[in-house]
C-alpha cells in the first residue's frame, strides 16, 4: 500500500528493516513481521503489560507504540534476555519460585523486572510491587513473582560483589 513507511529496528541486537503502515503498533510489527512472539497482546490499552519490551532503555507497552514512533529504536524483548544455555537470572528464579502459571504475562513481567533491577538493583518488596504494578498477572497473585524478583536481585548483587 502506498502509505507504508520504511522502518528500521534493532531488536535483541539484530537489525531489521521492513515496510509498515505508520499506524501499525510495535507489538504487531514484532509479532507478525519479525516473528518475535514472546511479548503478548492482552488488552491493547496499556493496562496489562503483557506486551512489555524495553525500548531505548525504558520499559514500554509495545501495544501503544506506533512503529513510526519506534523507528530507529533499540528494542529488547524476552527473547533477548537470555539463551537456553545461559538463562537470565530472572528466568531461573521465576521457575525456582513458581513465579508463573499460564505463562502469558511472563515475558512482559520478566522483561519489566529485568529493567526494574537495572533501575534499582536493591529494591524493597514495596518497590518491587510498585515497580511491576503496570504488569498484570491473573494466575499467581504476585506473591511468588515478588519472591522471584527479590531472589534474583540478591543473586545479581552477590554475583556483582564476587566479581569485585
Amino acid at each position, binding site marked *: 500500500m502506498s502509505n507504508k513507511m520504511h522502518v528500521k529496528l534493532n531488536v535483541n541486537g539484530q537489525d531489521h528493516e521492513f515496510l509498515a503502515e505508520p499506524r501499525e503498533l510495535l507489538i504487531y510489527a514484532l509479532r507478525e513481521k519479525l516473528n518475535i512472539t514472546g511479548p503478548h497482546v*492482552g488488552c491493547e490499552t496499556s493496562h496489562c503489560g503483557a506486551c512489555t519490551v524495553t525500548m531505548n532503555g525504558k520499559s514500554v507497552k509495545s501495544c501503544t507504540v506506533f512503529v513510526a514512533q519506534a523507528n530507529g529504536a533499540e528494542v529488547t524483548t524476552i527473547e533477548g534476555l537470555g539463551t537456553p544455555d545461559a538463562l537470565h537470572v530472572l528466568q531461573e528464579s521465576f521457575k525456582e519460585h513458581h513465579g508463573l502459571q499460564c505463562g502469558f504475562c511472563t515475558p512482559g513481567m520478566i522483561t519489566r523486572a529485568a529493567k526494574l533491577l537495572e533501575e534499582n538493583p536493591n529494591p524493597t518488596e514495596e518497590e518491587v510491587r510498585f515497580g511491576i504494578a503496570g504488569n498484570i498477572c491473573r*494466575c499467581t497473585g*504476585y506473591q511468588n513473582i515478588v519472591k522471584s524478583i527479590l531472589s534474583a536481585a540478591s543473586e545479581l548483587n552477590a554475583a556483582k560483589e564476587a566479581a569485585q
Partner: protein
Amino acid sequence: MKDEITREDRVANLKGMGCSRKRVEDARFTQGKGNYVDDIKLPGMLHGDFVRSPYAHARVKSINIDAAMALPGVVAVLTAKDLEPLNLHWMPTLAGDKQMVLADGKVLFQGQEVAFVVASDRYVAADAVELVEVEYEELEVIVDPFKSLQSDVVLREDLVAEDGSIPNGAHGPRKHHNHIFTWEAGDLEATEQVIDNAEVVATEEMYYHRTHPCPLETCGSVASMDKVNGKLTLWGTFQAPHVVRTVASLLSGIEEHNIRVVSPDIGGGFGNKVGVYPGYVCSIVASIVTGVPVKWVEDRMENLMSTAFARDYWMKGKISATKDGKITGLHCHVTADHGAFDACADPTKFPAGFMNICTGSYDIPVAYLGVDGVYTNKAPGGVSYRCSFRVTEAVYFIERMIEVLAIELNMDAAELRRINFIKKEQFPYTAALGWEYDSGDYHTAWDKALEAVDYKGLRAEQAQRVEDFKAGKTRKIMGVGLSFFTEIVGAGPVKNCDILGMGMFDSCEIRIHPTGSAVARLGTISQGQGHATTFAQILATEIGLSAESITIEEGDTDTAPYGLGTYGSRSTPVAGAAAAMAGRKIRAKAQMIAAYLLEVHDNDVEFDVDRFVVKGAPERFKTMKEIAYAAYNQAIPGLEPGLEAVSYYDPPNMTYPFGAYVCVMDIDVDTGVPEIRRFYALDDCGTRINPMVIEGQIHGGLTEALAVALGQEIAYDDMGNVKTGTLMDFFLPTAWEVPNYETDFTVTPSPHHPIGAKGVGESPHVGGVPCFSNAVQDAFRPFGNRHTNMPHDHWRIWQTANNLGMHD
C-alpha cells in the same frame, strides 16, 4: 546386583507425589517460547473480525457489505444469510438453548456478533468492519431480570409459539416469555414449616453481581480446512477440546475423524474458555468458504462484552435456628440473569449448576432451593469463574446467611459456624439438598485456623478499635472476615453429569518406552495449572519411573484419549484418577514381567518405589527400567510385548475439598479504602500432589476472589451499554493492591479417589470471595451494618460508612 543408593534417594529421584517439583512448563514460558493461539501463523492465513452491535436490543433492518468488500484485502464478509444455508446461523448452547452465531433479524445485547469480515491482515479486517453499514431499529431494552419477568417485550421471539403460547424450554415449563426455567431442589413444604415455627429466623437479600473471568489471553481460534484431504484442523482457546471436536462435527456435518482440535498453550481460562463462541464457528466457516486458514482473536473489549460472563445471581435467603444457634432450616430463591441466550456451562441436569450445595459446611436438616432463569438484554454466558458450577454463588450465599444469623442471634460468627458444622463422624454425609459429601474434618480445620490467627485476640483488638473510633481517636475501623467453605468438584459421575449428552468421565493413556521413559496423554488441558508437572508426579509414584522421564501431553484430539476437559477443578479428581488407574494397569503387567525375570511366582514379588523385589529378599529385584526394556525385547510366555495402558475413569462421586479462611482488614472510613492486613488460608484438598503448585493455585484464586469482592464487575446502564468494557474500568488487581497470603493445610483424603486427591484450583476463589466480603461487612457490623452488596469498591465502602452515619 548391588544397590548403590538408599531407598530414600530412590524416592527423591522419583519426584513423585508430595514433592514440590519445579515445573517443566516454565522453560518455554520464561523464554517467550510458549505457543498460544495468536502465535500460530500459517501460510496464506486470513484474519477475521466482527461487526458488533452498538445496541442492546434492536432489529437489524439491513446490512450493506459493498463498501467493505470493495476495500483491497477484504476476502469475504459473512452475515447470517450466508450461514443459514449451512444451518449455522444459530448454534446450540451448552445449556440446551440456542444462540445466534450472527445476528438473525435482531440483536439482543451490546457487542453481539452481526457480521464477520475476513481479510488479509488484522488492520484491513478492522478497517472493513468500519465500512459495513448496518441499519438498526432500536427496541426497548431490559437489563433488570425482575422487570423482564413483568415485561410485555418479548426478547426471544424464537421461543414463543405462533399462537402466543410459551413452549417448554430445555429444563421444563416456562412461566413467561422471558423466563428460561425453574429449577428446584429440596423439600419446600417441610422447609417452610420449620422456618415458620422457628425460634429465630434471619432473612436477607443479596445480589451477587455480574463479573467476568478475564484471563490475560482472550479467546481465539485458527481454522484450517484442507479441502484436498477433507480434514479440518482447529486450534483454539478450548478448555474442553474433545467436546469442541464433537460439537464441530455435529454442527458442520464433517465426520469427527476428519476434525482435529488442538488447544495449544492457553493463557489462563478460569471458565472463560469453556463455552463455544460465534468466533470459533465463523473461523471454521470462513476457512471452508475461502479454502485457506482463518484466524480469529478477540480483543479485550470484545472479551469482556461478549464471551462468558459469570454470576449475576439475585439471592433471597431465610435461615432458621434455635435460640442457642442450632440451624434448623434454610430457604433460598435465586433470580438468575442469564442474558440474551442461555449459554451457561453446566452439566445438563443442573441448569443452576451445583447451587444446591448452598447448605455449605453445616448440618442443616431441611432446606429448599428454587432458581428462576431469566432472559435480559445482556451478554450470554454464565460460566463458572474459577469455581465448580455456581459453587461460588452457593458458598457466598450461605456464608453471608451465617453472618446475618449471627447478627440476629447476637452471637460470634465463628462459634455459630462451629456448633453447626457437619461432624467428622457424620461423613459420608448426605445433605438436605441431596449431595453426598465424601469426607471432611471441619472442626479440626476451623480450630487450627482460629488459633493460627489468634481469633480471640483479634476480636479484642477490634472491640478496642470500635471504642477508639467512637472516641475520635482513629478513622480506621477493623474487620475480621471469616469463611468456611465446602467445594463440590470433579464432575462427575456419568450417571449424573453430562454436557450435551457426553458423560463427564476423563481419561489417561500411557505408553512406556523400552528405555524406561514414557509419554502419557490425558483428556484434560492445562491453562496454567501445571498438569505436565503434576500428572507426571502421580504417574511416577504409581509406576516407579522418574517424573523427569515422563512427558505429559494434552489438548490434541488426534492423540489424546477422549475427555471432557479442564474446568470445575475436575482435572485431578477425574483425569488424575484415570492416570493413577492407568498407572496401576502398567504396574500389574510389570509385576508379571518382573516375576518371570526373577524366576518366581507373580505373587512373590512386590512393588517398592521404582522396582519389584522378591518378597523377603530385597537384594533380588528388577527396576522398572529393566522391566520396560524386557517388555519390548524379551519373549515372555503368555504376555504380549509392549507396556501400555489406558484408563477411562467415571468417578463414583464428586470430591469435596474444604477450607477455613480468615481475613483481617482495616478500612479508612473517609476514603473507603480497605487494607488487607492479614489473610490466612487453610485448605484441605485431600492428598497433596505438589505443595508448591497448590500454594500457587491458592495465591491466584485468592487474588481473583479479592478482585471480585472488592471491585470487579460487568456493569450495564439502563440502555444496555457495558460500562466496564476495558481494563480501565474492569478491576484486575496489580501487585500493589494484593497482600501476601499465609497458607496452611490439613489432609483429609477422599475415600473414593484412587490417590485420595480432591482438587484445589478453585477452592481459594470459592472461599475467598465471602471471606473478603465478610471482612468488609464485619468491620461495619459494630456500627449497625447487616448486609451490603459486593463489589466493595472504595466508593461503595465510603457509601456504607456514610449511610451508617460515620461521617457525621
